[in-house]
């Protein structure tokens, strides 16, 4: 099958992050396949009707089971993703949500690179001191039939945001320190 990129590679690594080398092939990674859902317009309409105080359905929220039943992916798409992971990477995937709209599989970085046609690198956020493995610059590709069954796969191209609260004023302790003058 032709290979398709569900998401574009990242040309500019986000500010604060730097690439410090290749990811070790034996490091473990949990890939998360977001399987395409159905009836999304119905979900949207239901959300607005239960959330609008002027709606007669206001407050009539759906149960978790009902929400997941409403948008459950097709059995074919679920099977396609399962088969792809199992056949190519040789690992057993599992459903990460009640209706299998997320399917995860733990494997090595080496297996993930082979599965996704990707190259994982270690990214480090200097200020936060956080390191992640991402295939941001290489991107990833999936066989056409698998790409048609998923919205995206993570962690791949997306680099997490890091937010740190600021200190904008002196603490009470600092305020009582007098200047030499």
């Amino acid at each position: 099958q032709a290979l398709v990129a569900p998401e574009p590679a990242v040309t500019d690594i986000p500010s604060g992050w730097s690439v410090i080398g290749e990811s070790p092939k034996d490091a473990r990674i949990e890939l998360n396949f977001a399987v395409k859902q159905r009836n999304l317009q119905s979900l949207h309409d239901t959300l607005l009707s239960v959330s609008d105080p002027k709606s007669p359905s206001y407050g009539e929220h759906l149960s978790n089971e009902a929400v997941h039943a409403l948008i459950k992916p097709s059995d074919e798409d679920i099977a396609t993703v399962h088969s792809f992971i199992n056949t190519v990477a040789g690992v057993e995937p599992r459903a990460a949500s009640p209706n299998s709209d997320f399917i995860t599989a733990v494997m090595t970085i080496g297996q993930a690179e082979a599965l996704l046609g990707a190259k994982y690198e270690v990214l480090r956020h200097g200020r936060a001191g956080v390191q992640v493995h991402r295939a941001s610059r290489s991107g990833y590709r999936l066989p056409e039939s698998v790409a048609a069954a998923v919205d995206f796969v993570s962690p791949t191209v997306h680099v997490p945001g890091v937010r740190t609260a600021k200190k904008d004023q002196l603490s009470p302790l600092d305020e009582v320190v007098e200047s030499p003058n």
Partner: protein
Amino acid sequence: VPQHNVPETLRQLYSIGFATVGNATSNRMAVTAFLGQMYSEEALKEYWAEYCSEQKLTCGKGLPTLVGDATTGTPGVESMLDIETITGVAGNVHAEFWGFAGRSPDNPENEPFMKWLTQMASTPDETVPLIFSTSYGEDEASWSYAAADRLNVEFAKAGTRGISLLYASGDEGANCEKGKYVPETPSSSPYVTAVGGTGPTTGYPKPGFEEGIGLSSGGFSNYWPMPEWQRGAVTKYLATAEHLPEKSVGYNTSGRAYPDIAAQATGFCVTPFGCGVAGTSCASPTAAGVFALLNDVRLSAGKPPLGFLNPFIYQSAAAFNDITVGNSGGGCGIGIGWPTAKAWDAVTGVGTPNFELLKAAVVQ
């Protein structure tokens, strides 16, 4: 008079008062933490002892439930700010701390934000928190359109179940990058409630004296169209506000506008780090605490929780303190960022919550 934002001042500011409000046993609220921001029970207990005991305030409802693959450890400013603030504002409501590392000795590399989403989707209705406050954000385009579109669906799933999602709007004001305004997400998602930031107009926080502050992020999404529930308010702002940014900075006036509301975002005390912490990371758990109490009012009245808040917020704008002073920064050097204005604006949304007024609105 306290010089900083602590439970006592925040409850005065937002008309919560000092009575124990929370009574509904099924009410739960949560904060989320990512990438190694850890929770410390010792620090939370110290915070409660310092800011709640002497004032005889009920803070939280026992120790928080810990959920996720990375919860306890060396406390982080962000994580402790979130849990201390939400339990300081909302007395007698059970809190949860949901923490995800992205990687740990026991867990393989993952996308912590996705771990949170799948955990929430797998938690039964009986035990899932009714409100999540998240102080996580990044440039909108850092998620591909395909992934961002899917995140919207996940947010919509939560709202349809009756779960409210509040996000810090961002700390970069109008967020100028390379001469253009850049929206921030998840606050730019039309399926969450974005919380901007205010500060005191005078030296210390007191009711009726708040202004929009420079760090408060807001603007317009480049991914998502403007929803109907905010169209009237935002259209009025664009038509009547003075000192709007020049069009050359590239904002998309047909996009989803944010923030939706605001709360104090400067001068917070965080144990064990000290006072003077700022950012919309302060505002989101503050607002979430108020809405957790409003959920309590509804549950106690035999009504369902508020769920996705935005249609209610825009229809109940009169129950918020309208912030008409101040502006955001980050304006590409050719202006002030966004100005505040009467009614909705791109710094403070419809304003800061007035619990007394909102309490009446949520049971109507």
